[in-house]
């Protein structure tokens, strides 16, 4: 076959692929365009947002960010969100790893039932329990409290975490902890110094998906937090949208600030997140 006829074959094939590429690029634009508008609008005054819709801002002034951080007090909410997210991630990992260890590696006779009890929580629609939860939190004095939020989020994330840890720990060789046991290591030491370091991928999956879920949640702060001092970022944003309705620059900047930690994490861990979701669909 001559070179020209090869080319003649290649061109229709490329043409045939054009509609497909177009579809993919249209959706890419549908995702990126709103985010681009968000990014440039953060640096514009409200008047500039109206005058110059798509272009880059006249100056890269950080005015809106400063006002969002101080005047709207988003900085405070940001710290609350960091505390709640960090606390929930650590608590979830520690207690879930502790529970998953004996359930996946001891012969107890009741492993199956207990594991089933934990796993049944993965799909439970916990929002429907919010009335009972509210009365419980009130009687425990955990309303208007970051500790209360940490406990509730950990409780919700424990089923998924136990599931992931148990799956990873089950396949580790049994010689591993037996050898350590012979050397007189305590069970606590075996778990935290031998088993847990062996299941680092499980730790990162649990940490990533717990952090995303907790950072983004809005429902529980909405029902448990009334004092401005303890509001988290999504709750504050839901108030801003109404409160600063006409101050678009400030709202855009608040949105950018609140998605920044997730964006950074996503850029660093996109592959792990893609694989984690593809494998289990274990999100939401």
């Amino acid at each position, binding site marked *: 076959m001559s070179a020209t006829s090869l080319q003649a074959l290649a061109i229709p094939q490329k043409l045939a*692929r054009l509609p497909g590429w177009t579809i993919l690029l249209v*959706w890419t634009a549908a995702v990126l365009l709103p985010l681009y508008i968000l990014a440039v609008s953060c640096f514009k005054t409200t008047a500039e947002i109206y005058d110059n819709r798509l272009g880059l801002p006249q100056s890269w002034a950080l005015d809106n960010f400063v006002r969002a951080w101080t005047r709207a007090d988003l900085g405070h909410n940001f710290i609350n969100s960091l505390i709640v997210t960090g606390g929930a991630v650590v608590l979830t990992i520690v207690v*879930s790893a502790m529970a998953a260890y004996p359930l996946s590696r001891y012969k107890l006779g009741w492993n199956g039932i207990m594991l089933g009890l934990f796993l049944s*929580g993965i799909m439970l629609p916990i929002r429907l*329990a919010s*009335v009972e939860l509210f*009365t419980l939190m009130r009687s425990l004095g955990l309303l208007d409290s970051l500790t209360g939020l940490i406990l509730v989020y950990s409780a919700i994330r424990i089923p998924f975490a136990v599931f992931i840890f148990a799956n990873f720990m089950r396949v580790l060789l049994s010689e591993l902890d037996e050898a350590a046991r012979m050397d007189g290591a305590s*069970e606590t030491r075996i778990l935290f110094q031998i088993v847990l370091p062996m299941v680092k991928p499980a730790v990162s999956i649990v940490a990533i998906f717990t952090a995303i879920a907790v950072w983004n949640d809005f429902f529980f702060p909405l029902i448990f937090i009334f004092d401005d001092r303890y509001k988290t970022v999504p709750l504050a944003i839901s108030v801003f*949208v109404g409160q600063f309705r006409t101050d678009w620059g400030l709202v855009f900047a608040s949105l950018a600030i609140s998605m920044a930690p997730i964006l950074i994490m996503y850029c660093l861990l996109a592959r792990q997140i893609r694989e984690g979701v593809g494998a289990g669909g274990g999100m939401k």
Partner: protein
Amino acid sequence: MTKLRRTTSLQRTQQRMAVLFILPALAVYGLFVLYPLSLWGSFFTWKGLRMQEFAGLANFSRLFVFPSGARLYGALWHNIAWFFGIMVLQNGLGLLFAWLLFLRGRGAAFFQSVFFFPAVLSPVIVGALWRLLLAPGGIVEWALNGLGLHQGSLTVLGNSHTALGMLIAIDAWNWMGLPVLIYTAGLRQISPQVFEAAKLDGAGNARMLYAIALPLLMPALGTLTTLSFINTFNQFDIVYVMQGVQGNPSYATDTLVTYFYRLAFGAEGAVGITDIGLALALGTMLFLILSIGTLLMLRFFDKRTVEL
């Protein structure tokens, strides 16, 4: 003999350690998830947040009649429409995207990362962002007017005929990456020889998708349908942020969970009239819908799973 004694003593230690190790997780999970989900309060009358006396099914029968009936059926219908909308817009379009990425291979990771990014954002941020973009005087109005596709002020969110559809589309925008990733993982598990053989038999791409890939993607479709079902019937955040807790305009975007929230915690903020008995009855009913629906769906797709 000594060996036997050692194993039993090891087992006894393990039983004791197991209880100690499991207790913290079980306590937190049991107290804050399992205990509150015992929705037995729905069988009692309530005065504010105080439980009064046993009422049998009175709360449930109140739920279906005036004045609650209209709200309930409205919200139920919106949730059902939302579910089918998501099945078509998100899980249908997502299949097309995943298939195109699978055929091309090149650049798949990049497109997947872009498509999935909105899914790691809070629905609050997504809702707030689209509320700004779609606002009267906002950029979408400006663009549509500029292109000559629309004239005057854009009020899609204030119009009771279009508001629900817009929210469903935004929800699909939010989660589009999920079906793309799950279908792609499913497509990669299909042996390449199957597609080669079909190609040799002269099957086009569309036919391969319909006749070969789709039946083999049943587990992926099952996961997505179940997840979409659960998420749709828990829909709250986007409605609250974009349309308020009443599901404006005039309850056109009200969902079962926004209705539940109003009954349990009042209209706006913490004020307004609550009806805990009604809220718990609605919660119990929704819990049953979700559990039974999920089980039926899992069974349905389990039966249709094809093995090669």
